[in-house]
């Protein structure tokens, strides 16, 4: 397994170095697209072909990939691959408005590297470093359009994200201290080490550690009320970066919360971990659904949808039981595919209409039929409409809620997923189907020909979110069951 994990990391690191040397030339896009695809392929092989090695350390105790990390690794590797492919088209001068083109490719690949490393590494300290690295590179990527608004968004993201991660680090330090009475004061804080002594961990410290980790890393996840950076960064960053933030970064940060939660539940019982996840998850779901209704900027709308979906995952794990937890982890995968499709569509709209305002875009379907269809399907996919995968995952979480007799939580999900659906679908229907009116943006670039790499990336995301709605392959089914067994699956 270690070989495949190393190949994934080496591909992104190699691409980062190569693109530093090559600079702003089309070949940098191709190198990044190939590196992303290789990393995704290697991650698939590591998780599925070598499944006997799942749940064991590899490369000494450097890597640890079990069901939980496998799900998140597949999600971030997929997002990295499709974003790199899409970016190779989007960065052509006549399409995207990236001013800092020279640093875009190295930073994108470094972002991929840090995201891939987060679910792979065994040491909680290294995990924190990987997430911290994502903040620095992605904040710079958010500012890469060079506008005043993108600088403001990048600034808010750095300040709030760094403060959150400092608090998260305090949580990891407390978890380390909780193990000291049993393990001594010189041990490596890996998941398996801490789990092996979980019943003997200091309970008061574990309570505090998980709370700090949830609030600290929850800031990066975008959980309400620590979400203030997220709508700005998602809306002002270039669209492929918004896709990477939403589909991969939020998931990677949530992974750390769940990994520490998996230790905490063995030390202090499942109810403490579940209750905290439910509180933050429900708050995020409810508030983001309402905020989605009043947005005038379609990228901010998608950003609030990301907060809502992270809330749904937290709620699903917090509801507990094998069905809801399975649904929550399935949701991580389908959200990654659905949200990349939606942000790729938003990138097409922005490049053609040069506005983020919902009220200035009308009649996309007649001006650019392929883009119109993709944008509408993206909106339907992330709204949880059948037959897309998100419908299936939400249905699983609701079913899990009923099976655990948590009717109020299941009902909450049904109601607010529908509120978000109304906000999302109405908006995108208006932009795509309604005819052009006198307030519409000038369609100067609307009718440009489609860019093959951008179209390919959208079709890839669409096919994943659609196929997974209809069919879950056996190995993936097994992976999701083993993820649920790590956290959430036990009551």
């Amino acid at each position, binding site marked *: 397994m270690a070989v495949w994990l190393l190949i994934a990391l080496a591909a992104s690191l190699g691409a980062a170095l190569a693109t530093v040397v090559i600079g702003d030339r089309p070949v940098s896009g191709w190198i990044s697209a190939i590196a992303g695809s290789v990393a995704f392929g290697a991650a698939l092989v590591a998780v599925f072909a070598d499944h006997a090695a799942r749940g064991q350390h590899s490369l000494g105790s450097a890597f640890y990939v079990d069901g939980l990390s496998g799900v998140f690794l597949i999600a971030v590797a997929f997002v990295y691959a499709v974003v790199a492919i899409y970016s190779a088209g989007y960065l052509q001068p006549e399409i995207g408005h990236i001013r800092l083109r020279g640093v875009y490719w190295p930073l994108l690949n470094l972002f991929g590297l840090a995201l891939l490393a987060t679910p792979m590494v065994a040491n909680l300290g290294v995990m924190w470093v990987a997430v911290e690295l994502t903040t620095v590179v992605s904040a710079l990527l958010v500012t890469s359009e060079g506008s005043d608004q993108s600088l403001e968004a990048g600034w808010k993201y750095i300040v709030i994200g760094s403060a959150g991660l400092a608090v998260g680090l305090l949580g990891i330090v407390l978890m380390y201290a909780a193990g000291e009475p049993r393990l001594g004061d010189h041990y490596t*804080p890996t998941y398996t080490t801490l789990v092996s002594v979980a019943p003997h961990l200091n309970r008061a410290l574990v309570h505090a550690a998980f709370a700090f980790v949830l609030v600290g890393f929850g800031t990066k996840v975008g959980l309400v009320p620590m979400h203030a950076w997220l709508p700005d960064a998602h809306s002002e960053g270039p669209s492929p970066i918004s896709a990477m933030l939403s589909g991969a970064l939020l998931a990677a940060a949530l992974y750390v919360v769940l990994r520490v939660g998996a230790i905490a539940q063995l030390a202090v019982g499942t109810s403490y971990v579940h209750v905290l996840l439910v509180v933050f998850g429900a708050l995020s779901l409810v508030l983001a659904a309402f905020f989605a209704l009043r947005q005038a900027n379609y990228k901010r709308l998608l950003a609030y949808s990301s907060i809502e979906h992270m809330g749904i995952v937290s709620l699903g794990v917090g509801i507990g039981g094998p069905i809801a937890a399975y649904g929550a982890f399935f949701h991580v995968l389908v959200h990654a595919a659905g949200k990349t499709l939606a942000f790729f569509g938003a990138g097409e709209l922005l490049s053609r209409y040069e506005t983020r305002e919902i009220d200035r875009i009308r009649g996309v379907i007649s001006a650019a039929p392929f883009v119109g269809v993709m944008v509408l399907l993206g909106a339907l996919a992330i709204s949880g409409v059948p037959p897309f995968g998100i419908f299936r995952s939400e249905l699983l979480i609701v079913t899990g809620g009923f099976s655990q007799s948590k009717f109020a939580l299941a009902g909450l999900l049904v109601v607010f997923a529908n509120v978000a659906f109304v906000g999302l679908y109405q908006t995108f229907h208006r932009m795509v189907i309604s005819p052009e009116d006198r307030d519409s943006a000038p369609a100067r670039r609307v009718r440009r020909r489609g860019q093959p790499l951008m179209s390919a990336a959208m079709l890839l995301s669409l096919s994943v979110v659609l196929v997974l709605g209809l069919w879950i392959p056996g190995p993936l089914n097994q992976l999701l069951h083993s993820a649920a067994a790590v956290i959430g699956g036990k009551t």
Partner: protein
Amino acid sequence: MLHAAPHYHFATAAAALIAIAALLSGLALLAVKQVHEQVRVYAVLSVFAAAYTLLVGVNRGDPGLIVLAVWTAVIKVVVIPLSIDRAVTRHVSEHEVPLVVQVPMSLLIGVALAGVAYWSAAALPIHGALLPTPALGMPIALVLIGLFFMITRQNVISQIVGLLTLENGVFLATVAVAPGLPFAIGFLLLLDLLPAVVFYGVFARLIAARAKGTSIEDMAVLKG
């Protein structure tokens, strides 16, 4: 034992003094309005962070912590404050920071936050290296004061100083309760470097792009 005891008492007393001085530095930050002075108070706080790390390193005979103390002194006491100071001199027109909460009220809130920190730290059954109980009181107080400072100072540089103060709190907590954390040296070094990277990467561009000061009141476009 007879030889060890005086050494132990000296280290404990010194650590207690450093903890008090660090807490007072954190509170002093709330009392200054000038950007330059805020940066200097941060440098003083970092002196205490480095001194405490050195003390624990020497007491434990841990060369890693001694290296970390030297590194902290170089980066946090000299390099970061000087870089920020230079940028302030070059770019900032308004050297006095507009306050959301005025100084007397800020100090009162700071003292209250320190009280909350000591009260909540007392609930954690943990002994810090050399520090008086509750060991995490002072570090958590610095985290809370740093957060409060970031929220209530309407200036980009003050927000950096608040963030760095918060990080100093986490740094002190790590040295206090997990001095043996083997990876600590590596990731704490990174922790110290990243704000500097951030500072040059975004803030310098922010100022260059706007050339109109560092008040975050200018940053009010993105809302909702």
